């Protein structure tokens, strides 16, 4: 820590809550705890906000993927007092098999600060996402603006990308569905709608059906294959091949399936300016965490960036958590501590009750993520869109869906005229995950699968000048761990999950908040202090 400039001591030195890491769950927590009147110290060892939910320029992003901290904490920690013992904090990397290829370093260099690449992409907000409600309730909407995702596409059996018929209007306009398919799909939508809004018992889907796998319910409703695939993978956003019982690690139940469908539908038309179900924050996903941090700061939360925590103080007698020692050498005491998921406290201390924050956490899977910088849009008339490749649509052994999000310069995530492509797929191990992403990239850029470049050694920057495809300037592929956060006196927030939206992350955050502060409301309904704040989400057209 010798290189760090001396930092003035933080006043006061006792807090209700110390939070380390400024990812979205931590930031929401900070804002919620501050709104509930708690004194909160919010730290981040990084020089930027957002932790694993940050948006960064290419170089910073590759640096973060390789070494998640500017420097590792000093393990030699002194005890803060006679009755306190020091406990070390371990760091782990969430990322592995990082593979970064730059095909035009000069061009990138020239524009480097104009990029904000999402670490946990592809990720967007459903207009009816719980995160949107939290943004509105907390007042964070003052600090962030959104734009619509123009289109949502899905790859059909024939390998063609077609628009997802996700609403009444979209079904009407759809060119790929037959008339009968339109009727069948719309009737299914109405059935689900009636389940949620109808008053009679007859309108509701039976309990037995709700418990059954969604894929079986869709079959029972006699939906044709094509429509089944659209609903499962492009609307309910299922990851695993629901038709393949052996490979499918997460079977979506009918209850879950129709809830996701309902989320999608209540998203369409929620905001007048949003054309579809999905919106994306201008300047990238990192803006969301920052908006909550600013909200927390308004409520009195203290922020210190570039400040690592190097050890915990533990009560010698009870073994309970008392405080932290900062990289600056200062000791801070608090009742509770929340850590972002790269930190682990050796479990022998018995500090972490094993309460998992998320369901499906028992699934051992990893997330393969990819980022590409392109010089032109993959689709001539659209700049921001989502593409889903359902299982088996790229090749027979593909067991999970690939989601692809293109975001253009008009969302200020890259220089105007360029485009950023995010890809993700669940996988068991790195090579499988990368294969899926490679196949998807090749399919998108009309490349032959034979052109798959042999896996390059991890974390080397490589220049391939003779690359045939002028479209691709830069590419990052990496594998991210997926484990859920945990709750206790010392809690840890969940990692960016494998879903497209923020609903699951928000559920986990609310659960964490309610465990820490069981008697406090999560963002109480208060009249806006700022008269100009009309409580609406700003969606630019």
């Amino acid at each position, binding site marked *: 820590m010798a290189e760090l400039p001396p930092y003035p001591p933080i006043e006061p030195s006792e807090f209700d809550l110390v939070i380390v890491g400024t990812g979205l769950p931590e930031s929401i927590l900070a804002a919620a705890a501050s709104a509930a009147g708690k004194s909160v110290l919010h730290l981040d060892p990084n020089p930027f906000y957002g932790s694993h939910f940050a948006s960064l320029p290419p170089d910073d992003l590759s640096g973060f993927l390789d070494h998640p901290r500017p420097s590792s904490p000093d393990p030699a920690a002194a005890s803060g007092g006679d009755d306190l013992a020091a406990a070390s904090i371990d760091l782990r990397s969430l990322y592995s098999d990082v593979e970064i290829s730059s095909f035009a370093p000069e061009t990138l260099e020239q524009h480097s600060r104009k990029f904000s690449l999402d670490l946990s992409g592809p990720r967007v907000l459903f207009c009816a996402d719980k995160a949107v409600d939290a943004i509105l309730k907390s007042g964070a909407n003052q600090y962030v603006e959104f734009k619509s995702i123009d289109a949502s596409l899905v790859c059909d059996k024939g390998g063609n990308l077609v628009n997802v018929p996700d609403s009444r*209007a979209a079904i*009407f306009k759809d060119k790929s569905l037959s008339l009968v398919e339109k009727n069948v799909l719309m009737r299914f939508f109405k059935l689900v709608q009636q389940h949620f809004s109808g008053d009679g018992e007859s309108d509701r889907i039976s309990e037995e059906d709700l418990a059954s796998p969604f894929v079986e319910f869709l079959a029972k409703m006699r939906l044709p294959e094509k429509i089944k695939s659209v609903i499962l993978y492009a609307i309910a956003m299922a990851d695993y091949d629901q038709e393949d019982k052996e490979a499918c690690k997460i079977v979506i139940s009918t209850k879950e399936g129709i809830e996701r469908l309902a989320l999608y539908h209540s998203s369409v038309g929620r905001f007048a300016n949003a054309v579809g179900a999905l919106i994306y924050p201008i300047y990238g996903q990192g803006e969301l965490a920052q908006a909550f941090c600013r909200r927390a700061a308004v409520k009195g939360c203290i922020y210190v960036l570039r400040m690592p925590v190097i050890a915990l103080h533990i009560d010698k007698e009870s073994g309970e958590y008392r405080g932290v020692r900062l990289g600056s050498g200062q000791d801070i005491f608090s009742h509770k501590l929340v850590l972002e998921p790269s930190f682990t406290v050796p479990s022998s201390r018995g500090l972490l009750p094993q309460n998992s924050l998320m369901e499906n956490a028992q699934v051992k899977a990893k997330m393969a993520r990819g980022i590409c910088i392109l010089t032109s849009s993959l689709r001539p008339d659209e700049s921001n869109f989502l593409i889903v490749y359902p299982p088996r649509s790229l090749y027979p052994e593909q067991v999970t869906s690939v989601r692809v999000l293109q975001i253009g310069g008009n969302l200020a995530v890259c220089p105007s005229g360029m485009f950023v492509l995010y890809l993700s797929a669940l996988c068991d191990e790195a090579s499988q995950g990368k294969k899926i992403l490679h196949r998807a990239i090749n399919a998108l850029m009309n490349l032959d699968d034979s052109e798959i470049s042999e896996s390059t050694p991890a974390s080397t920057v490589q220049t391939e000048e003779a690359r045939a495809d002028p479209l691709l300037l830069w590419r990052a592929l990496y594998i991210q761990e997926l484990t859920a956060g945990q709750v206790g006196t010392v809690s840890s927030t969940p990692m960016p999950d494998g879903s497209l939206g923020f609903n699951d992350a928000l559920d986990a955050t609310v659960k964490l908040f309610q465990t820490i502060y069981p008697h406090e409301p999560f963002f109480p309904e208060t009249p806006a202090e700022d008269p100009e704040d009309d409580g609406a989400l700003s969606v630019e057209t």
Partner: protein
Amino acid sequence: MHGRPRTAPKPEDAAASAAKAQKLRALQSQFLSYHHSRIYTEEALDASAKLLEINPEYYTAWNYRKLAVEHRVGESGSSPEYVKSIFDEELKVVENALRQNFKSYGAWYHRTWVLSKGHSSLDHELRLLDRFQKADPRNFHAWNYRRFVAALLGRSVEDELQYTEDLIGNNFSNYSAWHNRSMLLSEILKKKEQESSSQDVISKEYEFVLNALYTDPDDQSGWFYHLWLLDQTFKVKAPLLVSSWPVPGFDLVVSGNVSFADHPLSSFSEFTVALERFPVVLYFNQNVEGVNSSTVTIQSTFVQNEDVTWKPLSLQNSPASKVWVGYLDLSGVDHHSSAPYTVEIKLGHHQGIMSSNGLQLSIPFDLSFTVSVKPLETQSSKDEKVAWEEDKFCACETHLQVAIPCLCYDGITVDNKYEPTTSDWQIGTIAEEISQIRNLLAISDSKIGKITLARLLMAHDAMSSPYATKTVHAEEVLGLYSELMKLDPSHYQYYKDERSLVLLQQLLSSRETLLRYCFCYRGITSPSAYGPICLRLNNQSISRMGSFDKLLWVQLLDLSDNELHSIEGMEALQLLRCLNLGRNKLRSFTSLDPLRYLRSLKVLNISHNEIGLHSIDTTRYSCSASPLSHNGEIIWSDDVFPPEDADVTNYWEAFMVFKSLELTQLDIVGNAVTNEKFKSFLLKILPKLQFLDGQNLHQI
């Protein structure tokens, strides 16, 4: 804007609105004083602008502003910039008013007025409209204004069409957009000179709207547009003569030598009519104008073409009608000669008979028949009464059936050039839609889909058989309407009426089916061995009459024990003498209006109906029989005035129906209106009446 419940105002709101009203009244009286003194100063204009911002519906203030604009423009020495600024100010006032209420008639009209003066820029208008059409896409004021602006801007129909497509794409329940689309397409179709290119346009629209019908069959907007398309496809173009009396080649026997009126039924024989004159009826497939002695020529030895006056048989006092009648005078005929006279009628050889959309009767039509005079030998009793009892009728014998002059107009038996008026494209399109709607109904239950299918099937039948002699789909259509009557009880009467018309079409479509309903009447003395032929469509659960083109020959008609509430169209049956409407659901005398045209009608049974039962006469509210349409005019010319002591004021409607009839027998018992007072009124206005409710008046 739509479907929002009203909530009762809270007390504090009521107080606030009272204060607002107070303020408004003050402003209004100040404004009126400016208006009356013709003060057009800045201050006065401000007052009106303020007033309109609060209440854009105050039309006087808009008119004041128009006067002010004219005043100021006249005064200005007309520097163009100054004039423009005056008009621009008006646009601003309108915009403020619209912000208060974007459905204000006055504001939109004022804006139209300002722009039509041509001093203002139009650039802003489409953006303004976009805003209002976003606020409420079904705001018809905005749509009207859009059409006005689009015309001023000279925007192409194609651009506007694309705009409707976009809005329909956003929400295909937006009927305003569909409606505007139909308006624009009508323009395009008018311009398309080649048949095939307008066919392409219509086919594409069918494809387009089917997407809406399939996606949400419960939404009506698409169905209404579909109906409009069906209309465009089905549109019968040129007028066509579908039926006539007498039918071509018919040998008409005219008998009797004394005044017909005294012997109501004695002169029945095969097909005989009154001696003095007989009617020629021309029945077209649509309303036509221009039937007169120059477009229809009659060649005969006993009558001069110019002496025949053709009259439209139309309840509305309109120059166009589907049915035209001309009476041929027989006074010049030698009663003792039995040799038949030939009558030749030619029409369509010269231009002049045309439909409401200006199309000429395209197929020339010649019809000839013979007339022979047979003096009446047997004189029957004056007191003979027509009784409708079951045992008075017996089945027609085969040799008699041959004489029934029905169903000549199937395009084959008529010796005329018959050219199909419908194209393969039309029939193909309808067939395609039938299969599409059938497929839809197989997977989705839809009332409006069922009625559309019924209409399509009937259109298909009508197209493949212009004289309605083939009813391939009638059974299916009847089934559809029966189903609808159960599914949708609130429109029961409509379905029932439609079903009745189809049923009649089916019953009267072929000779075999029709003959099942023809009976010989044996209730009166007749010169021939067999009695006159009566068409009995009783007890068929018919609620509306139709297919009159098949019934022009009928003299005795039994429609009793049905559910008729209207006899619209019956005016075509010029030969009708005896009509039984007993035990139906006629609600008023106005619903009997068509009877006024039936000069031959002598025997009428309207017993056991609902006349006088309902205080509100709904017939009056249907357009065809509006009390404002002055349809009594023709009758007054017959110099019929009420007897002085008749209680005309209380029974005006009854008087209007009966005054021109020379009934000898009337049954009216079992109606709420019937009482002694009414009966005495009837006796006064029907001097020739012999039987009233079965009672022989001459024996009292």
